[in-house]
């Protein structure tokens, strides 16, 4: 951890690490509930953070994102999405290389070149039309690829669902984003806000759906997030543990679960 700090220089990274250290200290003080999910030992803390994020979202982020969506025509918003996705392809190139995925790394690099040169700096996604596949990879996925487990589920302030591993990878992911290389502070901040706002706007329909489909939106989000991260680490082919529980008429015996005394 120490050497990571020194390698990834920059004030921002160091500040993020300091914040994280404080954060982990706070966490260790958290109690664990009696019905804790093994993948979510920090549930009481996480639920609190989830509620906090949700309140901020309802009060500020969602209304602003809705205005953003209603004001800007769809092609403009697609352009914004493409622009930031194009920058992300560079970081995907690095992480695909770190995972020794030659073809995916090559595709990421070619995508960035094609879209930057022929796609007006990434606003148009020419590479996708040329059928050059996108392979999004971040540093959390690289750690996962090399065998680092996800660790407990963690809800970050404002940033939302994560895991301990992905949180540890976050400072590097921030550093790897080309936006953080912009020296002009107001420009960099504006770009970051635009990126986050655009991402939230794209999720407006999904979050409306979540309200309808989930019995408990915290649990739904957690279980969906952890699965999708595992899926991302294994590029769509996570280890198949089969169906753990199959209580059917024909197969009423279920040895792995204890009766919970209902």
């Amino acid at each position, binding site marked *: 951890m120490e050497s990571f700090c020194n390698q990834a220089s920059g004030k921002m990274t160091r500040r993020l690490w300091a914040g994280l250290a404080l954060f982990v200290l706070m966490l260790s003080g958290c109690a664990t509930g009696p019905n804790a999910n093994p993948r979510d030992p920090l549930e009481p803390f996480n639920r609190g953070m989830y509620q906090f994020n949700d309140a901020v979202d309802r009060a500020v982020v969602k209304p602003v994102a809705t205005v953003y969506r209603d004001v800007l025509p769809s092609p403009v918003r697609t352009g914004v999405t493409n622009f930031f996705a194009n920058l992300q392809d560079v970081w995907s190139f690095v992480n695909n290389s770190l995972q020794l995925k030659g073809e995916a790394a090559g595709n990421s690099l070619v995508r960035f070149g094609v879209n930057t040169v022929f796609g007006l700096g990434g606003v148009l996604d020419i590479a996708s039309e040329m059928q050059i596949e996108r392979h999004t990879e971040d540093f959390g996925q690289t750690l996962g690829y090399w065998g680092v487990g996800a660790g407990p589920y963690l809800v970050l302030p404002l940033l939302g669902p994560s895991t301990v591993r992905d949180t540890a990878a976050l400072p590097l992911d921030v550093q790897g984003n080309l936006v953080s290389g912009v020296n002009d502070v107001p420009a960099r901040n504006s770009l970051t806000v635009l990126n986050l706002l655009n991402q939230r706007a794209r999720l407006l329909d999904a979050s409306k759906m979540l309200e309808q489909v989930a019995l408990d939106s915290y649990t739904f989000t957690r279980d969906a997030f952890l699965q*999708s991260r595992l899926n991302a680490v294994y590029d769509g082919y996570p280890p198949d543990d089969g169906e753990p*529980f199959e209580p059917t008429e024909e197969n009423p015996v*279920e040895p792995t679960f204890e009766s919970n005394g*209902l």
Partner: protein
Amino acid sequence: MNRRFLNQWLWAVTASLFMSVSGHAADEAPDALIGRLTRESLDIIQADKALQAGDVSRIIEVVDEKIMPHLNFQRMTASAVGPGWRQATPEQRKRLEAEFKTLLVRTYAGAMSQAKNLSFSVKPLRAAPDDKEVIVRTLIIGRGDPVQLDYRLEKTPGVGAGWKVYNLNVLGVWLVETYRSQFAQEINAKGIDGLIATLTERNKANATANAKSAKG
């Protein structure tokens, strides 16, 4: 030139007729079945304005006619309910299945309007010929990045098309697994009847919310 086209066309029509007949007579391969169902579903949505508008009664009609025969929905529900399923009476099980189905159908009704002009591909099947359960993987291609859509199927020799879907995966997230903890939470707190009540309430609330947004 014309004649060749006519010949090709006739061949295609004959082949498709033959396939639709044989499809019902013999068991299909699981990936062929998923490919056929996906194509049929996309065609139906493409042609049906009511479906695109998210008309729930029409969607339920199509789901019952086209989709349900190929699902083992009881297994899906049982698996999502988990250990509690064994304690449930037949009546409770029926209610759970019905309410769970309504919840899912209503939810996906909202996504129908975005299901226009889509294409898809079925990935090569990784399975042994004698496998009783397989995963069929597909990609739905529209605007933006392709969407991963996978299915778990069980062999049902002689029943339906020979395979039934008992779980599906959207973007790496299995449907049944995503409900298992939520259902367990409800059952632990309020029992099976509590879960049924919660599902029923949620479906009623969704119905009114959708009716309101349709009017507005």
